[in-house]
């Protein structure tokens, strides 16, 4: 996935802009901040989250970081490859290092809280 096509949150998650079921991950910036990811604690497939709820946890030697749901929805898949290779997130945060697939419940009304690539980039440059 091209990072420029994705939508972002202030807390450094991304979500695909369209589709019934959409991949969610953490941004390139977030993976750099965390350093080597060593473990991902995945949610149960089938669980339903609201926008901003804690979705899962990623751990690096530095910290365990909560990843929040960019929009509300049902978790329909988790990236099972990350169990054996959590470093995939470091190598390809916006590609093969995706975390879960969500089926959004009300994307249209929640998308106002999301940033496009340029706005997100401006935000992290200011930090």
């Amino acid at each position, binding site marked *: 996935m091209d990072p420029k096509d994705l939508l972002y949150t202030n807390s450094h998650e991304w979500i695909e802009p369209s589709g019934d079921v959409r991949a969610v991950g953490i941004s390139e910036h977030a993976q750099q*901040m965390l*350093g*080597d990811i*060593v*473990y991902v604690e995945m949610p149960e497939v089938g669980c339903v989250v609201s926008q901003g709820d804690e979705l899962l946890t990623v*751990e*690096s*030697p*530095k*910290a*365990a*970081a909560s990843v929040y749901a960019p929009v509300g929805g049902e978790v329909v898949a988790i990236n099972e490859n990350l169990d054996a290779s*959590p*470093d995939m997130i470091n190598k390809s945060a916006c590609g093969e290092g995706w975390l879960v697939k969500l089926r959004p419940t009300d994307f249209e009304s929640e998308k106002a809280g999301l940033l496009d690539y340029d706005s997100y980039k401006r935000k992290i440059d200011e*930090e």
Partner: protein
Amino acid sequence: MNVRVLPIEQKSVAGRRGANIPVAVEEIRARGRAAIPAHLRRAEAPRLPEVSELEAVRHFTRLAQQNFSIDGQFYPLGSCTMKYNPRVNEQVASLPGFTELHPMQDDGDCQGTLRVMYRLQEELKKILGLEEVSLAPAAGAQGEYAGMAAIKAYFRARKDEKRRVVLCPDSAHGTNPASASLAGFEVKPIPSGPDGRVDVAALDKLLDDSVAALMLTNPNTCGVFERDIVEIARKAHAAGALLYYDGANLNAIVGRVRPGDMGFDVVHVNLHKTFSTPHGGGGPGSGAIGLSRRLAPFIPDSHVIRDEDGFFTMWTGDAPAPLGRLMAFHGNTGVLIRALAYILAQGGEGLRDVASYAVLNANYLLARLPAVYEAPFGRPCKHEALVTIRKQNKLNGIKAFDVAKRLLDLGFHAPTIYFPLLVHECLLIEPTETESRETLDQFVAAMEQIAREMSDDPEALQQAPHDLPTGRLDDAKAARELNVCCRWDSPAAGE
């Protein structure tokens, strides 16, 4: 001193012994074998290193000498209060009257120890400004859990169980949300403002009738005093919530301000931090808790009471306390004796000086460190100095991690790094009051040298440490590959 110590099995020589144990006659050996069922008996002798007693002593002494410890090095680990542990504490705690008691002896035989515990409870009540103290929790995290469980029990008793939320600042120690969660609460973060303090406007929005408690550390982990604390406490109480004080940073205010006066309802105190009992090796610690009047009925089981005749008893309640017992018998009494010895040796004025010098030392460091170590929340700080090298990191990728590793080369234990989480590439430096100006100057000199290396020799800095028995460890690999089983084939194997 940094000679690499070979694994002890590599020093093994077949047949070498540390002690000559008499070999039992065959009849006794046979009886011994028969006492153990065949399927539990070893098929072959255990493959243990075979060394002399002297070699074993040298081996473990050398390993011990390679440790960093407060007795050997400056140890400015932020939020850990690695202060000197006065030897007189050890002397007092090793008196036979304390050490030769058995925990199942009657209270009548243990009056000395019980009196010490009672006195410590009383002193801590004065220091904390609270109604009741329990010495039962064995460590800070257990103290936090006990405090949160007391809050849970309080709301249950009031039949106000809709209060399920606990608010923690985003700068909180990780144990805070963990303890709240373990006690059955849902945790919500409170954002910090640009000055590193709780954003009171954001707090206002979060305070409603679902909130059971607010957990705060004051001064917080940014090294900043929450000066709106009285206002924050008023707002929390007005919303029906209670206030939890994480005593990890008590060293900054001990003897100066009392958490009870700031409005806190429950406090845990790490006796192994502020009150100088040894820590850092995995315990034993003590996370004594103080409770306000409204929480006092929810104290964990077992604290010491004194009757009209001056007789001390371990009180375990008429009915089991909501929390039950946290520790077997009297808890970590050795630690409690040391803490009381320290409090009495310092006295009230001495404790006030502890806070003053702890804060002075941290500010001295903050003022003297070169500019590359930027203070994100300005000056002054309380008892720990938070700095960040985020600008240098953007420039050429030097990390707080590199600084920490290089400090080991230069003879200092590293400060806390990457905590609090809200400041990138940060180092949290807590010198404590027990360090001299000369030691602080040596540390500043080391930090200046590292600052020069950031631009003069960044590659070498990124590979530090260079002068230790082991080089840089691959901590990502260590966390990913958890199988640390060692394999060893003894040279004596099969002989």
